[in-house]
């Protein structure tokens, strides 16, 4: 399989402070990759760099296209959906408007309506609440909405920043089940940042571990979850 995303020598900065010190990553097309690490390790910063939301140096190529010269709103149109940490829901708009917004850069209005119905099939709760303001949904429902909104782009690559944050274990299982299904059926490549390493490694085929802005470990997810030393020293379980 070819790599859909390639990150080389990524160094990112918040003002004078350097947050990433040369990250290298490759995502195989159609895979699920997880990026693990402690608080403040640089996971969010890595995703933000991919979407060009922060100053960085290095190369980031999507399908061979260099992303660093494209603005955030333009590179989204290549098919990169980003569910940011804290979901980024449009809280004052209805559930259905949020879904429509996910497809706002598409030009096939007809198909959009069909896709909204598909999302309601994936997430029946959202259908019940379709005309409710998104801000009034529960945390779990909002997370579902964020994922559904990202899918409305018909993305080729989906970046998820801690989708399990604040969700009850059962809901997390549900959500990860849906992600696996989306990956399998719609061939969406997924990169998921997680604190919940155990579950993420179950879902993912590849894994990277990041510590203070550097990749300290990478390989097949199964290998990493089977290695007790890594688990103990980096993943804390």
């Amino acid at each position, binding site marked *: 399989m070819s790599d859909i995303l390639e990150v080389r020598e990524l160094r990112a900065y918040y003002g004078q402070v350097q947050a990433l010190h040369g990250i290298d990553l490759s995502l195989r097309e159609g895979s699920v990759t997880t990026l693990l690490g402690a608080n403040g390790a640089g996971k969010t910063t890595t995703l933000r760099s991919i979407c060009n939301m922060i100053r960085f140096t290095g190369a980031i190529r999507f399908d061979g296209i260099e992303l660093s010269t494209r603005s955030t709103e333009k590179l989204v149109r290549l098919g990169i959906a980003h569910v*940011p940490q804290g979901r980024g*829901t449009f809280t004052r708009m209805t559930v259905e408007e949020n879904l429509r917004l996910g497809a*706002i850069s598409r030009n096939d209005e007809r198909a959009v309506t069909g896709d909204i119905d598909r999302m309601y099939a994936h997430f029946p709760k959202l259908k019940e609440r379709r005309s409710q303001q998104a801000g009034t949904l529960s945390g779990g429902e909002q997370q579902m909405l964020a994922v559904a909104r990202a899918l409305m782009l018909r993305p080729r690559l989906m970046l998820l920043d801690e989708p399990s944050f604040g969700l009850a274990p059962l809901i997390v299982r549900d959500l990860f089940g849906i992600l696996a299904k989306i990956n399998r059926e719609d061939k969406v490549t997924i990169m998921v940042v997680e604190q919940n390493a155990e579950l993420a490694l179950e879902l993912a085929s590849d894994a990277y571990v990041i510590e203070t802005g550097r990749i300290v470990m990478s390989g097949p997810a199964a290998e990493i979850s089977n290695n007790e030393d890594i688990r103990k020293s980096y993943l804390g379980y």
Partner: protein
Amino acid sequence: MELLTNQILAGIATGSIYACMALSVVMIYQAIDHLNFAQGEMATFSAFVAWQLMRWGIPYWPAFILTVTISFAAGVAIERGLFRPLANASILTNVAGFIALFAIVNSVTGMTWDFTIKEFPSPFGSSQFLGSELINSHQAGMIGVTGLLLAFLYCFLGFTKVGLAMRAAVSTPESARLIGINVGWMVALGWGLASSIGAVAGMLIAPVVFLEPNMMGGILVYGFAGAVLGGLSSPAGAVLGGLLVGVFENLIGTYVPGAGNELKLPIALALIILVLRFRPDGLFGRNVVERV
């Protein structure tokens, strides 16, 4: 009773102008979190443009539409040229920008068209509306045109793709960019719309107050009052606030003994402060409890 109805209808007529100004102010406030003090001067300038076009022989309605279009372009240009570069500057820098804009537009208007008052035509005339004693036809026209304008905006913002993108961009810019919306252009579009709405207000009120470079000064104060009363977070609230201020103003002028023309403004404003004392987000302002 007839006096009351009459005063309320007249209040709604001037109130619809305040409502337009309130709406312009709120549109820009939502996009960039600043109050545009120059909104009134921009509207005055637009009214002068219309006046000039008519002097050149263009009939009223084509001149009206041309003015709305020119104002839209000017609003976009002001955002691109002046306020976009200030987007990350401090509040005070922005305030200075608005004061500069106010002074520049005001003096350019004065220099171009001088400060003598001019008559501005009304396409509706000033006879009694449908023979009724309650309201004249220009007042009815102000209400009608404002109503059409609001209906258009409601459909645009509520039911079109660009309207949806615009609302998303001003409510949560970061997320909007992540779904492919060009937030910068949406803010510029907001300026263009605000400027067009102000132009409509200016052209509608000019026959009543006469055209001169400072004609919108007092009206913008009422517009601000309406926006604050209705809630700066809510375009619909701003419109209702503007209408209420218009009605208040008239009723106070008529029924409060001795209020007359001099005191109705302070009394109306005092009443608004009283309302805000109990509803700080305005009558219709949303103070949604958002989950984090």
